[in-house]
Structure formats: C-alpha cells, structure tokens
C-alpha cells in the first residue's frame, strides 16, 4: 500500500489491528514523508527517527505475541516542543532551552506512550508558546503547507503543519489564548482546546498557568476524539487537574444533532473578520441548521475586553513563570564578565517577543499598577466567564469564526505586536473562561483554509466532537490535501 501517510488514525488503527499493515511500515511511511516535504514545511525542531522505529518494532512484536493493544498502538504522532520528553531534547523553540534534555515525561506523553503511540519528533513553535505565527521560534519559521509563503499560525504551528502535510497522523499542541485552534484554522486541521483541567499540565513547560491547556490536532473529529480520549483525565501530579469522569468520546459521535441548540454570538461576527471567514462561519451555521440544529442569536457582551484582559493576565503569569530561567539549574548560562549573570543569561536566551511579554507582565504587576491592570483584568475574566455561563444556559454550543483572517504572509505582521495579538480575538475568551473550543475546517477563501470554531461549556468536549463529526459527515473540507510537491515531486535532490 502506497502513501500510508494519507490514512486517518481510525482507519490505520483498524488496519494495524487486522495486521494488514505493520507499525514499522506506517512509521517508515511517515518518516519518508517527512524527508520528502520537511525541507519545505519545516514543522520539526527534532525528528526522532531511530526512537520512532524502535517504538514501532516493539508494538509489532507485542501484537505478534498476541497482546491486546489499544487503538493508538502503532500510530505515529508529533509532539509540540513545549512537552517534556524524557531523554529527548525539549527546547520550547528557545535559545535558553536549546540543549535541555528533560529527565521526565509530561503526563500526556506518558499516557500516549502507554497507549503505544509512536513519537516522530518535536515540533516547532513560537518561543515559549508566545505568538500566533510560529515566526517567534528562535530557530526558523514553519511554513503553511497550503501556501509555503504563509504562516501556519501559532504558537503550535509546527504541530498543525505536520498534521496538515501528512508528516504525522495527529499531534499535540498547547493552547493559552488560541495556540491550538488558530493554527488549526489556518492549516485545515481539527484542533481542540479542552476545558481547563481536563488534561494534565504536568510536564507542559509553563507559560500562563491559569490558561494553558494541552490539546490535539487531527484531520477529522473522529481522530481528535481518539487522541483526547488518551490524554484526558485526572492527574495527581497536576493540582489543577479535574477529577471528573472521562466520557467515551468516540461513542459520542452519533451523527445526530437534531434539536441541538446552537448559539451565534453577535460579537464574533463584527467588522474585524475577513469576508471569506464570516462567509464560512455563516455556511457552517446553515449546515448545522440543515442537520436539525436549532439556531439562535446570543451575546457575549464583554468580548471587547478579552484581548486586553488576556494581554495583562498572560504576560503577568509568564513574567513569574519564566523567572525560573536564571542559568543555574538548567538551560543557557552566561557567566562571563561582572554583570549580573541572571540578567545576562536572560538577555542572551530570550527572543524579542518573550522579553516584551515579561516586561509587560512585570509592569502590570509592579507597585502602583497592580490594581489598574492585573486586578482589573481578573475582574474582567469573571465578567467573561459570566457571559459564557449565560449563553450556555440557553445553548449547547456556540459557533463562530476561529481566526479573523486566513493564513497571512510570513513577515507581514512581525513589526506590529498588537496586530499579531488580534489574531486571537475569537479564541482568547474561551481560555479566560476556562471552557472548551474546537476549530474545524469550514471552507476555503482564495484557496486558503478557513476554520470554524465550536465553543462548548465546561467539560463539553463530547458535544463539541459530536457536532464536529456530524458536520464532517456532510462536508468534505477536512478531506482535502494541500498540493505539496515535495522534494521528489520537484525532482530536487533530497536533503
């Protein structure tokens, strides 16, 4: 069978269980695909090809011996380089962690390992997950497989591009203000931010701890459900992890959304979105109506304060979290000269955006400004949470655009930090309120993918996935592939 990398996780899982294909064949197909297109896409910071093949051989041997393996056994995945992997360099795409090798696995990594998943490598990101384009990587920008001159979104742009390009069957990212959903929208992938606390943050390198959440990328809602199933659940190592039962997400995919109450928040359909984006969201609303959902208007009146509250709370928490990079216990250390070695280390190790956020956060927390900024932002967070509580009193899910724009050109927004921040205007409120959201392929605008966002209440992931799956049963946006010639297709010499 050729082009195994085009399989869905669910189909590959079935083929592996029937022994029609082996985990080694499937893994090799992905490593070959990486070799073919990675020179153009640049999704990976580190490819762990030898480890991946060893893991695949182990899965094949265990299956041969008759062991009953779970649905992800032998499925090749990619991990955002913000997730600690024991013995494998974990950089956060930062110079300060360029040579850091964690002595432990993040809980989500442990869970996928125990499920038999194969790790292909670690994906590129905006440094410390701060950004919306993956251009803030200290190493190199990642390219969007749908147009190599454009960004894949961010900060989980490497994971998004890897899945969109067929370099991995699925991937994990992290979403603090939209860093899973927005790159999902820009790359035509399904990208889910779970409820805060649904998935363990242990071993996820901290950016803004009250907002960070790990989430999956996949090419269908069905595949995303399988990944979420593996990573969700209580973890004693994360004190903010929710001790709530994990439903059977795949069983929730009934295809039936008759009578489902879908809210359309008017604040998400203003002048900020490109016409192609609004049209795709309107189209999705009509598709859901056609499937039997009841559509109604609603309002999230404090949406206009979301970006401001986020750009106080997230930098404030980042300024505290990143205080640990002092050049003493791990990471880069600059000790020459008479200067303060901590300040010198941080000057050399952090990129421009990380410094900007640390400064913004330290300012918002500093004496004299705390009440006007930080405390005010935390009050606004209460108001935004209240908006969602009101809306979910009347609706099961909300539908809106994911990102106000399609993928933009590399370099287009780097000189204007605030313009970059506005990419997350529709995703940030969900992080502030703690509820869940998923971006699904909703159409194309001038050949570029448009994401549609489904927003759910606390622990509403099963409903989100049911709606996304029902939508995908009657649409084919998610089945389309970017036209990536690859090194072979171009007749270019392979790297």
């Amino acid at each position: 069978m050729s082009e195994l990398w085009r399989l869905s996780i669910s189909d590959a899982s079935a083929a592996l269980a029937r022994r029609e294909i082996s985990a080694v064949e499937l893994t090799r197909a992905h490593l070959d695909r990486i070799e073919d297109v990675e020179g153009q896409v640049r999704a990976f910071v580190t490819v762990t090809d030898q480890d991946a093949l060893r893991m695949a051989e182990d899965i094949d041997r265990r299956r041969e011996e008759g062991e009953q393996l779970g649905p992800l056994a032998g499925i090749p995945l990619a991990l955002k380089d913000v997730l600690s992997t024991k013995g494998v360099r974990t950089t956060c795409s930062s110079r300060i962690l360029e040579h850091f090798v964690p002595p432990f696995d993040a809980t989500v990594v442990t869970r996928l390992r125990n499920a038999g998943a194969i790790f292909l490598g670690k994906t590129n990101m905006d440094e410390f997950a701060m950004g919306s384009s993956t251009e803030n990587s200290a190493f190199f920008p990642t390219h969007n497989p749908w147009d190599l001159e454009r960004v894949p979104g961010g900060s989980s742009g490497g994971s998004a591009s890897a899945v969109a390009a067929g370099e991995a069957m699925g991937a994990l990212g992290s979403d603090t203000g939209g860093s899973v959903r927005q790159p999902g929208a820009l790359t035509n992938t399904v990208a889910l931010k779970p409820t805060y606390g649904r998935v363990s943050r242990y071993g996820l390198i901290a950016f803004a701890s009250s907002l960070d959440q790990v989430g999956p990328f996949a090419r269908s809602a069905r595949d995303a459900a399988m990944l979420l199933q593996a990573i969700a659940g209580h973890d004693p190592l994360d004190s903010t992890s929710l001790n709530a039962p994990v439903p059977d997400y795949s069983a929730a995919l009934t295809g039936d959304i008759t009578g489902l109450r879908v809210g359309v928040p008017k604040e998400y359909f203003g002048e900020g979105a490109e016409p192609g984006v609004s049209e795709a969201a309107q189209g999705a609303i009509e598709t859901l109506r056609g499937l039997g959902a009841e559509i109604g208007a609603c309002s999230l009146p404090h949406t206009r304060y979301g970006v401001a509250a986020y750009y106080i709370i997230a930098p404030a928490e980042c300024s505290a979290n990143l205080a640990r990079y002092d050049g003493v216990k791990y990471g880069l250390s600059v000790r020459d000269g008479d200067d303060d070695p901590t300040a010198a280390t941080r000057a050399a190790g952090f990129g421009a955006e990380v410094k900007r956020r640390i400064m913004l956060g330290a300012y918002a927390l500093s004496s004299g400004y705390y009440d006007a900024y930080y405390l005010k932002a935390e009050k606004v967070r209460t108001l935004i949470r209240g908006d969602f509580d009101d809306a979910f009193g009347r609706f099961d899910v909300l539908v809106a655009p994911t990102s106000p724009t399609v993928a933009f050109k590399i370099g287009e927004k780097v000189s204007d930090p605030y313009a970059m921040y506005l990419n997350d205007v529709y995703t940030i409120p969900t992080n502030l309120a703690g509820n869940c959201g998923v971006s699904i392929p909703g159409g194309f605008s001038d050949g570029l993918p448009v994401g549609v966002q489904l927003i759910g209440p606390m622990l509403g992931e099963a409903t989100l996935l049911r709606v996304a799956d029902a939508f995908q049963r009657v649409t084919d946006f998610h089945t389309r592939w970017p036209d990536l010639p690859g090194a072979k297709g171009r007749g270019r010499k392979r790297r």
Partner: protein
Amino acid sequence: MSRLMSIDRAVVDHVARLARLALTEDERDRLAEQLSSILEHINVISEAETSATAASATVLPSRDVMAADVARPSEPVAALLANAPAQEDGYFRVRAVLEDE
C-alpha cells in the same frame, strides 16, 4: 484613569531590573515605544464596569489539593544535575552571593 500612562525609558529600566533582564540601548528604545503602544490598546479595559465584580485568579473553584502523605523515591541526583550549567560535588555551582568567602 490617570494611572494608565505611557512608558518612558525610566520605566523600562525600572521594570527590566524587576524582571532581571539586561537590555541593549536599542531594546530600551524599542520597548518603550512598543509597550506604550500595546498599553494604549489595553487601556480599553478601564472602561469595563467592575465595581461589583469579584476577581478570578482561576476558573476553577478555589481549593487546596492534598497529596497522599506517602514517601516516594526522588529522582537520582545525577539525573537532576545532568542539565546543570555548572556543578561541583553533587551541587549546582553558582557565583558567590557574599564577597570574600
């Protein structure tokens, strides 16, 4: 709200000290300008009516989480020191804080 103001070089230097960040001349100028511009946008937050609103530091109900009081083996010292920029006799090596030993 007169407190919400733009950022000059003196404020940048003060905050950089708090954040333990050494900045170049160029960075000091750029940050003063960029942070002022970002704050201009962020200041919209002062318009939100919050006089009767409580602050939320987290979206979860505030509670203490207790771990079981069970001894577990710790990571081996060598594993924890493997990433240390400098080490000596099983310790992290740092610059002396107090002068003259």
